[in-house]
């Protein structure tokens, strides 16, 4: 049989127990997109693979085509993102990034910009200088762009005119920002295609534009005040929930972590 084996580099997005001692992996690769494969015996302590196919590991894999599911035959770590694994907050954000990619990417859909984004983000997330929440916002806006849901932040999605530097409105339904004037003068017409109209402050709009257009080297130095950050976070979470039509589990976990940190400070 020809081409029974193939070689990929991959990031482990998800894994679940399978059979007696095996693991079912959800892998994300630059060329083949998302795929699933079995790592045989990966739950045994003496397994040669288990550490190389741990969650969020970037690995080089040799995979054999199977009748139903493909089987990982060899695995070698390229980057284990060690700093991520030693900090609960950052780990929580890694879960979030991986869940976003898993939800937005279909199986076998090739999308190498998303792979690079995830790979770099996991590296940045482990750096001390990185504010994890800011990286999450950057990641959200970039991911939306690469999967074709880029929110329109520069001109009104209702009338097409460039936005005035004032507080405007945002609608996930309509796919971006709507002019204050349009909302005030044609509220009913606007409401037809923007059923989820929310105000967006000028500061939040500016922050989102910056996140959408600049590279991480510039974005990383951005210091948003808590109010603006919360506004951007809420808008993006609604935007994402609108497109996914479901809520993400890791968001709940991040919220719990935040609650436990503030509870710990009080105690």
């Amino acid at each position: 049989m020809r081409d029974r084996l193939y070689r990929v580099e991959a990031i482990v997005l998800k894994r679940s127990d399978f059979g007696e001692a095996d693991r079912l992996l959800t892998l994300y690769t630059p060329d083949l997109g998302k795929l699933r494969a079995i790592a045989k015996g990966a739950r045994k302590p003496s397994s040669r693979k288990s550490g190389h196919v741990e969650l969020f590991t970037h690995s080089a894999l040799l995979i054999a085509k199977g009748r139903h599911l493909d089987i990982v035959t060899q695995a070698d770590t390229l980057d284990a993102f060690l700093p991520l694994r030693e900090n609960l907050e950052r780990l929580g954000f890694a879960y979030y990034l991986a869940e976003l990619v898993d939800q937005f990417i279909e199986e076998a859909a090739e999308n190498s910009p998303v792979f690079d984004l995830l790979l770099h983000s996991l590296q940045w997330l482990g750096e001390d200088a990185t504010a994890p929440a800011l990286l999450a916002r950057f990641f959200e806006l970039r991911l939306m762009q690469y999967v074709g849901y880029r929110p329109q932040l520069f001109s009104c999605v209702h009338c097409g005119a460039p936005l005035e530097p004032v507080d405007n409105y945002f609608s996930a339904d309509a796919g971006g920002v709507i002019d204050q004037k349009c909302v005030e003068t044609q509220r009913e017409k606007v409401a037809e295609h923007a059923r989820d109209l929310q105000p967006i402050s000028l500061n939040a709009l500016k922050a989102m534009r910056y996140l959408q257009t600049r590279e991480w080297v510039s974005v990383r130095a951005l210091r948003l005040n808590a109010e603006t950050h919360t506004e951007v976070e809420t808008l993006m979470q609604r935007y994402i929930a609108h497109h996914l039509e479901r809520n993400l589990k890791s968001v709940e976990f991040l919220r719990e972590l935040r609650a436990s940190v503030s509870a710990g400070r009080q105690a």
Partner: protein
Amino acid sequence: MDTTPRAVTRLIEEFHRLPGVGPKTAQRLTFYLLRAPKEQAQSLAEALVQLKDRIVTCSICTNIAEENPCAICRDESRDRSIVCVVEEPLDVLALERTREYHGLYHVLHGAISPVEGIGPEDLRIQELLNRIRRDASTKEIVLATNPNLEGEATAMYLERLIKPLGIKMTRLARGLPVGGDLEYADEVTLTRALEGRREV
């Protein structure tokens, strides 16, 4: 028309609900029992009923037990100053087999896993905290969650909650498995093994 007696189809359906049992296996098991001596079926039925009737959760360690408190928590000869935190009841069995550990246990019944939607509030963490606060004899907590990401996340979470209480916390060593091969070890395992190296 289905002429199979009702009692037979009912048992087939019950077996079929068990994990890993397909329709054919369910049929085979049912017909095996049909032909087996009555005592065997009786004994199986009793075992099933007892499983649900006799098993309780220990109010101290939350492990499954026949009595409350469980045999380990009642054992006066065990070291009460040390509590080993594990994910599952089976982990207690594994640690008991070593005969090296003589302290008490606490079973969390799972590990934090955001992907599966299992958060800290789904585990028996509050019971652990209450226990430490109530029982002043606890001097050390051994974190024996699995050496995977979920286990590490759970250990880090517990560390954050318990450290402020001023109790010594230790984590089971992570490193090279016995019978393993150095060249196949991943960098995380090797890093941990180096960190935890011992003078000989």
